């Protein structure tokens, strides 16, 4: 790695903390972003010569703050003088920078910064775009390519989202423990959204695939500043377990490989070990939440050396627990897979039939239904369900996967049973 590459990484990992602190100071996202940008430029000029500072984040906040103040002053000469509180609280201005460099002081800054991006008025895709732009500092070009829209359209989308958030106002007071917990949960959801946006991509070389790594980075950051939140441990564990399977999820031809058919030796064991350690820690808190439960389910798959070693009884139990904490037809649909393994396709089918109304537009619903009907030998009904699924597929890989099921079924139907 060259020095410059290391500096890039250091700037990226310092970004949420530094930008969060600058935002609190200037109380304006654009000013904070400009100040951070300027600090980064100076870092690229100074660090290679003088060596990296011991605490890059503190350096960036300090330099960014000075350059931001200069910029605000310059602007104020051209315009009317700003109120003192536009720049900051006097308390902030006089505070010793070294004093606020502990992680505990970053907590609310970062949380606020992330929270801004998941304003409830914004649709999920805009939350993701805004967070990637502001918190992660990805370029508009990168984000636009990932979402398959033009750069100008993405630029507009982000500007509009920013305006909307600005109009809604951002609370700068220290949140109460209750508010903090709420924000934490909303931010966790947004991080998981970012993860899934990347993870759902069939092609790991696709621009959006990098979003998953970014989400893991944000997850690590959150856990770093809130080290005793079992749900954050669960979220990070869940993301690590899922991404550990990335090398095995698609065939060389880009087709989906089902969990039970994956080559488990390709799974990233380092990620799995870390996730299991996190989950272990989380369980000590005895506050199971949706992320911990989902991670626990994923962990059971990761612990099984072969697909047939999977402990479906435990998975069924965990899904039942998840249904209680976070009831959703999708959770029940997932439990149906465990039920089919434990008690056969008919019982699973009975479980998911009532979900048709809510999940009628859901690819996996028809895919699973087709699979279960196929197992029962109800070929024409299975065919119908598979056709539904293909029509609802999000990607070519999903459609191809179902088509292969149909082909297999037809081959089997064409041959007399020779067992």
């Amino acid at each position, binding site marked *: *790695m060259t020095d410059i590459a290391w500096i890039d990484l250091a700037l990226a990992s310092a970004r949420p903390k530094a930008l969060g602190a600058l935002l609190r100071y200037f109380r304006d996202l654009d000013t904070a972003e400009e100040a951070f940008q300027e600090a980064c430029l100076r870092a690229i000029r100074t660090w290679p010569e003088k060596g990296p500072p011991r605490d*890059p984040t503190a350096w960036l906040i300090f330099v960014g703050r000075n350059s931001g103040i200069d910029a605000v002053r310059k602007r104020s000469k051209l315009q009317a003088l700003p109120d003192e509180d536009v720049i900051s609280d006097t308390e902030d201005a006089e505070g010793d920078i070294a004093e606020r460099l502990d*992680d505990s002081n970053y907590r609310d800054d970062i949380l606020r910064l992330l929270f801004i991006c998941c304003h409830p008025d914004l649709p999920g895709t805009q939350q993701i775009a805004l967070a990637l732009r502001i918190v992660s500092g990805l370029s508009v070009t990168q984000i636009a390519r990932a979402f398959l829209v033009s750069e100008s359209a993405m630029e507009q989308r982000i500007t509009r989202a920013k305006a909307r958030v600005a109009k809604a106002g951002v609370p700068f007071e220290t949140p109460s423990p209750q508010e903090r917990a709420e924000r934490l949960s909303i931010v966790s959801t947004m991080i998981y959204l970012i993860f899934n946006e990347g993870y759902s991509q069939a092609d790991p070389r696709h621009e959006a695939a990098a979003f998953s790594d970014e989400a893991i980075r944000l997850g690590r950051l959150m856990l770093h500043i809130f080290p005793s939140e079992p749900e954050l441990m669960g979220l*990070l564990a869940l993301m690590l377990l899922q991404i550990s399977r990335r090398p095995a999820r698609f065939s060389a031809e880009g087709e989906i490989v089902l969990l039970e058919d994956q080559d488990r030796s390709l799974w990233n064991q380092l990620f799995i070990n870390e996730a299991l350690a996190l989950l272990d820690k989380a369980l*000590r808190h005895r506050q199971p939440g949706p992320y911990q439960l989902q991670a626990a389910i994923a962990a059971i798959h990761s612990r099984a050396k072969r697909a047939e070693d999977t402990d479906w009884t435990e998975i069924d139990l965990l899904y039942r627990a998840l249904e209680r904490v976070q009831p959703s037809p999708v959770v029940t649909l997932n439990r149906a897979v465990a039920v089919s393994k434990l008690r056969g396709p008919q019982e699973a089918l009975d479980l998911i039939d009532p979900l048709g109304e809510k999940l009628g537009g859901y690819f996996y619903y028809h895919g699973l239904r087709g699979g279960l009907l196929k197992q029962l030998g109800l070929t024409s009904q299975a065919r119908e369900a598979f056709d539904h699924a293909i029509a609802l597929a999000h990607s070519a890989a999903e459609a191809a996967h179902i088509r292969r099921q149909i082909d297999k079924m037809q081959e089997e139907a064409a041959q007399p049973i020779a067992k």
Partner: protein
Amino acid sequence: MLYAILCYAHEETVFAWTKEEEAAVMEKLYAVQEPLAVSGKLGPVGRLMPTTAATTVRKGKDEALVIDGPFAETKEALLGFYVVDFDTLDEAVAFSKQLSAVNPGSTSYEIRPFYVFRPGDAAS
């Protein structure tokens, strides 16, 4: 004399390395370790999971307290360690300098001589 060489760095940067960046750094580190391993002076080498995976047990009033996170909240975290057998501190310093040269960023190595060493047999 046995020395522990402890590697401290900014874990947020280290754990943000891409697979390729990570592989490149590890390869360079292995190259530095190799001659020592050949000469039989290199003992266990451990790379630690991030501090988010750490748990601290601290003496409490009645019962020990269990706290999530590493013992010390510092900018730089202990990310791994080496056990090496050197005749002099100078050799340990020279080896650490080599490690530091191939490790990007502001990585520090702390050299601590051993009092007692039991290699154990848990490693697989």
